[in-house]
């Protein structure tokens, strides 16, 4: 079947993919699914996915059998140990990276990251580790839930309001920055609102104050007069502003388009008609898991228009390496390194979030990715040799060097290498073979070669 990205039948695109002789369910597609719906797979996960088929695998990624709630309760508890007065969010970043590496529900972390990117708290705003921890917990609680509830909770949250210059939103001086960001970045988007709507939203949110990092509502500072927001007149408050913005089709279309870029492809913007079936449902039901599930099960998702049509963010790159090795590493240096690679968790550059795509990769960030991977697989240095590809390969793939080489290429790239990459890989495998005296070190070098192949940078 030939697919023209601008002329896809939406009915085909969003129908669930059924493996057949033409498109068999194989390692490649399983790896693709785990990269998008999480941070990459372990070997046992790939094997189980092959046995289970796509439908059951997607279902398990959406709703794992493990006790996810208990895992997250434990980590919420860890996060409460952060110094409550800390301005630095480095400690919080550590716990979040740990969750990404360890969570039994990686899709939930992937979606928390998605919302962190959409409801972005820009770098230059005052931060407070504990309120940011609560903010992330809020995002996580709704990440696969109801978008209406998520949005309403997020814009009535101390960290978010502070970030949107709404931390002291007085009747006499409503925060226009808050009104503008709400419309421009969080809901309807550019071209779908006017300056008077900015005023209206700013006034609707008056009365909310952030006092000592806690949200307070001060009745006498709320402007209860009539406001006009997106064509509707009334004595609106913040909750009303959320409802009004949600009723605009542009809000649903925007979020669905962002989810498309997140899960399907960042190379080609989707046509309106392609998104329409998803937008219609999302606009009325606000059911995030439903849209995500439809995307992950779809024919389009398992087509060439999605396969390797995204560039991995630094977090996806690093956590994917670690997860494949079935362990965790010290998240403190990792958090710093990811910031250097352009993804400072908790601090996206602006309210637009991380632009991502081709901006992730430059000569400088490539060198850093290369060196981070080297450090991760090294026995010395900040990660202390916790990733042991030789041990994992022996457990899962066999002990002949050829088998180890194949195992690493299958684990990280599902064997899908361009001829040039294949050549690099086979030379590296041969080199590891000749370093038999020290197999563990040889295999570390080989693993480094595999994750620095161009293909591994693609999600």
């Amino acid at each position, binding site marked *: *079947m030939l*697919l*023209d*990205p601008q002329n896809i039948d939406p009915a085909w695109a969003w129908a669930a993919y059924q493996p057949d002789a*033409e*498109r*068999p369910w194989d390692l490649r597609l399983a790896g693709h699914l785990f990269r998008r719906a999480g941070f990459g797979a372990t070997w046992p996960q790939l094997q189980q996915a092959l046995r289970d088929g796509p439908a059951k695998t997607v279902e398990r990624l959406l709703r794992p059998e493990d006790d996810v709630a208990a895992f997250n309760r434990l980590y919420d508890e860890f996060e409460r140990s952060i110094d409550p007065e800390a301005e630095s969010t480095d400690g919080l970043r550590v716990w979040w990276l740990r969750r990404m590496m360890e969570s039994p529900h990686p899709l939930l972390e992937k979606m928390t990251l998605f919302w962190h990117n959409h409801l972005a708290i*820009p*770098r*230059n*705003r005052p931060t407070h580790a504990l309120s940011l921890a609560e903010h992330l917990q809020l995002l996580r609680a709704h990440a696969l839930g109801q978008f209406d509830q998520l949005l309403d909770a997020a814009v009535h949250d101390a960290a978010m309001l502070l970030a949107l*210059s709404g931390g002291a939103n007085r009747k006499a001086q409503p925060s226009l*920055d808050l009104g503008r960001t709400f419309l421009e970045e969080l809901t309807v988007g550019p071209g779908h609102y006017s300056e008077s709507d900015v005023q209206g939203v700013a006034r609707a949110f008056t009365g909310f104050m952030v006092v000592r990092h806690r949200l307070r509502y001060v009745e006498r500072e709320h402007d209860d007069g009539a406001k006009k927001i997106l064509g509707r007149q009334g004595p609106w408050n913040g909750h009303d502003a959320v409802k009004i913005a949600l009723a605009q089709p542009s809000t649903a279309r925007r979020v669905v388009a962002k989810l498309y870029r997140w899960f399907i492809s960042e*190379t*080609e913007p989707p046509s309106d008609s392609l998104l329409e079936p998803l937008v219609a449902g999302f606009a009325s039901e606000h059911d995030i898991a439903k849209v995500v599930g439809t995307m992950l099960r779809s024919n389009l998702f398992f*087509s*060439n*228009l999605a*396969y*390797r*049509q*995204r*560039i991995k963010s630094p977090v996806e790159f690093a956590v994917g390496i670690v997860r494949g090795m079935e362990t965790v590493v010290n998240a403190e240096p990792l958090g710093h390194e990811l910031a*250097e*690679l*352009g993804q400072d968790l908790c601090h996206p*550059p*602006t*309210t637009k979030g991380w*632009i991502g795509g*081709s*901006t*992730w*990769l*430059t*000569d*400088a*960030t*490539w*060198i850093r990715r*290369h*060196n981070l991977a*080297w*450090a991760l697989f090294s026995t010395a240095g900040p990660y202390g040799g916790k990733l042991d590809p030789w041990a994992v390969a022996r457990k899962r793939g066999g002990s002949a060097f050829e088998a180890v080489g194949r195992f690493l290429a299958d684990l990280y790239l599902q*064997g*899908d*290498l*361009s*001829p040039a*990459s*294949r*050549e*690099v890989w086979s*030379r590296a495998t041969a080199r590891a073979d000749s370093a038999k005296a020290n197999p563990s070190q040889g295999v570390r070098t080989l693993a*480094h070669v595999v994750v620095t*192949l*161009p*293909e591994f*940078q*693609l999600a």
Partner: protein
Amino acid sequence: MSLSRRDFLKQSLGTSALVSASASVPCFLARTAAAAQTQPPQDDTILIVVQLAGGNDGLNTVVPFRDDLYAKNRPTLRLSAEKLHKLDGDFGFHPQMPGFYKLYQEGLLGVLHGVGYPNPNQDHPHAMRVWQSADLRPDASQTGWLGRAVDQIYQPEAARVPAVYVGQIPRPFAMNAERAIVPWVRSLDQYGLQGDDGQVPPETPHAEASSPDRAPFQQKTAGSSPAHDLLPFVQRVALAARATSRQVEAATKAPAGDYPRFQFAATLRTIVQLIRAHLGIRIFYAELGGDEPGGFDTHAGQALNHGALLEQLSESIAAMVHDLKRDRLLDRVLLMTFSEFGRTVAENGRRGTDHGSAQPLFVVGGKVRGGLIGQHPRLDDLESNGQRAHTDFRRVYATLLDEWLKIDSRPVLGSRFSPVAFLKT
């Protein structure tokens, strides 16, 4: 004599035959090599911004020794006229700035008097944010002025960001960009590819479709046109990274000038090495004075610390200018210093000075108009106990952007500012 970019690329790719684009050369390699060949001569202008954290005491930097009010206001801190490096009958540089004096005499250094902005803020982080964002309401600004400039010229497809921050303290907000990931360089070692055996060509994958036997999936669901194939882009990045790594390595091995043994001098040497590596970096940011509140914040016992910092500033920059001259690079480079504010005209009873307002900026380079530029603000007409600014700092930024870097200043600064005449015409 420095290597041209083309030579570097040839070296980096390990062969000069590549440029001839024979049939055996993968097409993306040939494209890249051809692109290097058609690069315009390396005459792009370069800006180096130097942040002096803490609030520099301009009065004891460029000293108005003839003004009675200077001596009157500075009972213990005043510098005696005979020790100064006299620029004319009225002004002299601090005694510990012989390097700047020499640059001044050579016409390579300009002093912009009285730079600031209306209703100056005297709080360190706030004032620094004003200068870094170029926004008088800095909290409203999500990006720095140089970040916005970088975003304007950055092309993701090129896989190179034309800006770098070189320093030991966290990345300054001035470089916060919406799109570009501006590298933070602490040492050129970080450009090395660890665990790399240097065998470039066989290690450099090239762009061809996956072979059929390994990719039945692609074969059978074909349809995405090559334009949507991200792999060639990633391969180009990998190649660019390798080239960058080698170019930096070559530049670090190239003979460098003599620099004094200051951290700041090492920073400037790193910048010159990055310029010599021909990476297309046009905006550099460096700092002297460290983290907030910064070494220039001299509330007490100012004389010793301030003199030491000025010496580091002056001697390091003079060494850099000398180094750049050797390669005839000086005409392409312009360095500007700034601080978040000047200091009070009167000293404060603790042999120090407090937060002031206007300050002198220094501009250095082969194409700057040397000399004293603009009126020295009077010492009997003060603003917040400091000198009153007559030149908005955003006019200086606008000149650097429009006339020096040829980057439209309007989207960066939000409106049009009239230029300041500190460039040779």
